């Protein structure tokens, strides 16, 4: 099977229920917005391949259910993700406060070097705003994570957010590659190698046994 991309990045959207994770993903993958979304049950993902500095980067973006009760299921999917979008709703104070809990959740379940970004969604609803942009920025500084306010509805900063996260992952990966001795492709491209391995059928003789 011919590979149609240079890199495959697995990303994850997390945050409280109703902050707009699915809307952000829908905006990014389909460039559309639907006021009557349904809540996410379980887990789903969407794919979009972007061009990043001449490289084709396939983004596999996982969307999760936000309610705490489902966390045992959703955290199972943290494994192997290379970038995480932490989403809160600027019109919902509680969802902002919970970002700290989500960060703790990541620390417990995702790999240590996962790239993170905080998104303050629904910034189009200025009249209902409960969390100022400054507070978002402050939180981001505190955790040394990049931050941007987005609006899935008005298509504001959604592209920017995903490109930024992807670029950071790519930079980190290439840095790792350089660090690991000759130009061999070692640690950084784990994900890619894994998916390659999956596609290859195992040697036929591996199943051949003397009855």
């Amino acid at each position, binding site marked *: 099977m011919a590979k149609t991309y240079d890199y495959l990045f697995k990303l994850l959207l997390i945050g409280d*229920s*109703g902050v707009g994770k699915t809307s952000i993903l829908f905006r990014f993958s389909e460039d559309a917005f639907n006021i*009557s*979304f*349904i*809540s996410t*049950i*379980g*887990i*789903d*993902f969407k794919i979009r391949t972007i061009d990043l500095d001449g490289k084709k980067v396939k983004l*596999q973006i996982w969307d999760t*259910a936000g*309610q705490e*009760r*489902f966390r*045992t*299921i959703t955290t*199972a999917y943290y494994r192997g993700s290379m970038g995480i979008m932490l989403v809160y709703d600027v019109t*919902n104070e*509680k969802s902002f406060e919970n970002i700290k809990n989500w960060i703790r959740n990541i620390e417990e379940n995702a790999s240590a070097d996962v790239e993170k970004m905080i998104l303050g969604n629904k910034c189009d609803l200025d009249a209902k705003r409960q969390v100022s942009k400054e507070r978002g920025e402050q939180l981001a500084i505190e955790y040394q994570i990049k931050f941007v306010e987005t609006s899935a509805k008005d298509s504001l900063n959604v592209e920017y957010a995903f490109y930024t996260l992807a670029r950071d992952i790519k930079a980190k990966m290439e840095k790792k590659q350089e660090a690991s001795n000759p130009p061999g492709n070692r640690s950084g491209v784990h994900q890619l190698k894994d*998916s390659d391995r*999956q*596609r*290859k*059928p*195992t*040697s*036929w*003789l*591996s*199943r*051949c*046994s*003397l*009855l």
Partner: protein
Amino acid sequence: MSSSSVEDIPEQCRDLFTQDGVLLKSCMGRPISDLNSIGMLCIVQNVDSSKCIEWRPNDLITIDSDTQDQEWAVVNTIGRRQRTLSGNMTSDYAAARARIIRIQLNELKTFKCSRNNQQMQFSTKPGVWHNTFYFQHGNAEIFVANLKNHVKTAKTRHDRNTYVVVEPNVESQELNRSFAELDIFTENTTDVVWNFVHNFKQRPYATTMEAFSKLNDIVYYGNEAVNGKRDVTEEVADLLTKSMSALEDATSVTRSDEYEVINVKPTLPPRPCIPRGTSLSTEKWEGLHDTEGRITEVEGVKQLIFRGGVANSIRHSVWKYLLDYHPWTMTHAEIKVLQKKRTEEYFSMKLQWRSMTEGQEARFSEYRDRKSLVEKDVNRTDRTHPFYAGDNNPNLVILQDILMTYVMYNFDLGYVQGMSDILAPLLLLLGNEVDSFWCFVGFMDKIASNFDMDQAGMKQQLLNLQQLLMFASPELARHLAAKDSANMYFCFRWLLVWFKREFSHKDIMRLWEVLWTGLPCANFHLLICVAILDSEKDVIMHKDCGFTEILKHVNDLSMCLDVDRILSTAEGIYHQIISAPHLTDQVCVILGIPTVGAKPEEPEEPEVPQAGPTNGNAVTYNPDMEEVTLEYNGLQISVVTQTVWALLA
């Protein structure tokens, strides 16, 4: 022979490495009763500092071992016999000790790790596998890695999973290597390869045997004909691998020193195709009530509904019975009284939260959180359906009020995502706030464990589903296990809201009312899952879907499923399972049917006169009998009771 019973365990043996969850699958010279028991595989250092591989049955190991957390593990379904214990504990212990198996490392010649790290075989003599172990958790590679620290090994050239122990015995090593390097395609050309592939498709078993006979020839008469290198394309490799495993799966081999018995593994009987019936009609429904309104033939009604569902015109009435709001035995008058009582009850609970002041709310965060969660979900529940569409739709307010009142009704459970999906079709059909609430309560009583705080109910169901699939469609279950999907997480949405997201409104009403009957067995909704997965088996397996592709494919099935076909398939699978000769207790427990051991001796049935033509499929009806028997391909299926038959007529 290396594997020998050990009467007494030397006290100074030291466990160098132990691994739990290892099942003894076959062992030369051991009685069948010793097989299929679970235990621990160890690498042990003997007193004289020589080492051996030791397998101990679990009966020997005290329960306090906490390493066996199998909550999410792949659990095999090889019929695990419940040993009948006789005598006192000490003799049991001695018996268990006698079942220990040891293989001295200095005698070990070859070992093999196969079936996606689920199986390990050991040999002390070339060409004969003395012991086979099954790794419940599919983690044999860990044992291999540790074993390699104690013996020097070389991989055979053509089978990556077979290891030859190189150190101790040079002679046998040579022999093993020659085995591995044999080439079965003696005639060289690619035509042969393609013929081979073609034959595999046409008659896999015969072709495999032919290949083996060639192998045999080479062993006996040398390998002169080999010239040039084999050039097998990956496609060929794939086909061969598949055929091999099909053959492996279909047979089991019992060996003793003198002979081999090759058994065909028990397979499920053919799946009967049971047509769906017609839905329960208004006339039938009315005819079922006695003069005062009681319904006495409850089982019969449920059978009818199970077979064909309920006509839409009477759903609003029938659902109240199916969801335990209206008791079957109540008269019309009694129901009227009950309704009045339940209405008052509802509004008093509603008043509890409606009368909450803003100040109270501000100091009651748990209540506030639930309220906001309900609001969020109500605003995104079935909004594309005309009944819930548009801004300021009053039906959304009712949806919200019912869910909020349910929070007061069951504050421990509160509101969990998915509940709005469960309620929406009920309100849509019943239209009435109070009726919808009490029907919702009845539905929630059936599926409350789906919403457990710790998700224990969901985990249990996913595990049960995996076990049922392993029994009903083992090939697919193994494929899923190999693709990191044995946890069945991709079925989470199906189970949480009983397929609400997978079907249209019209179809979900049909599916739910059939499932509410509780027929033909407990957990029939899990067989619905099995039916859907089984019908997607070819896609999932042929595309060689990985973990992500499986999830995607399953999620994308939403709104593409045929409810009647699935119900019919699920019922067929049910009959396949219960008439399987190798039905296990585990499966029986899941389906709530008497376990195999507990089955009462059935008296010889009098011969039922065949009414139909002699094609083997017939419906027989005897007015004196309580049951109507449908015969399909030799399977007898009891379908309806006498009364229902009369109703159907």
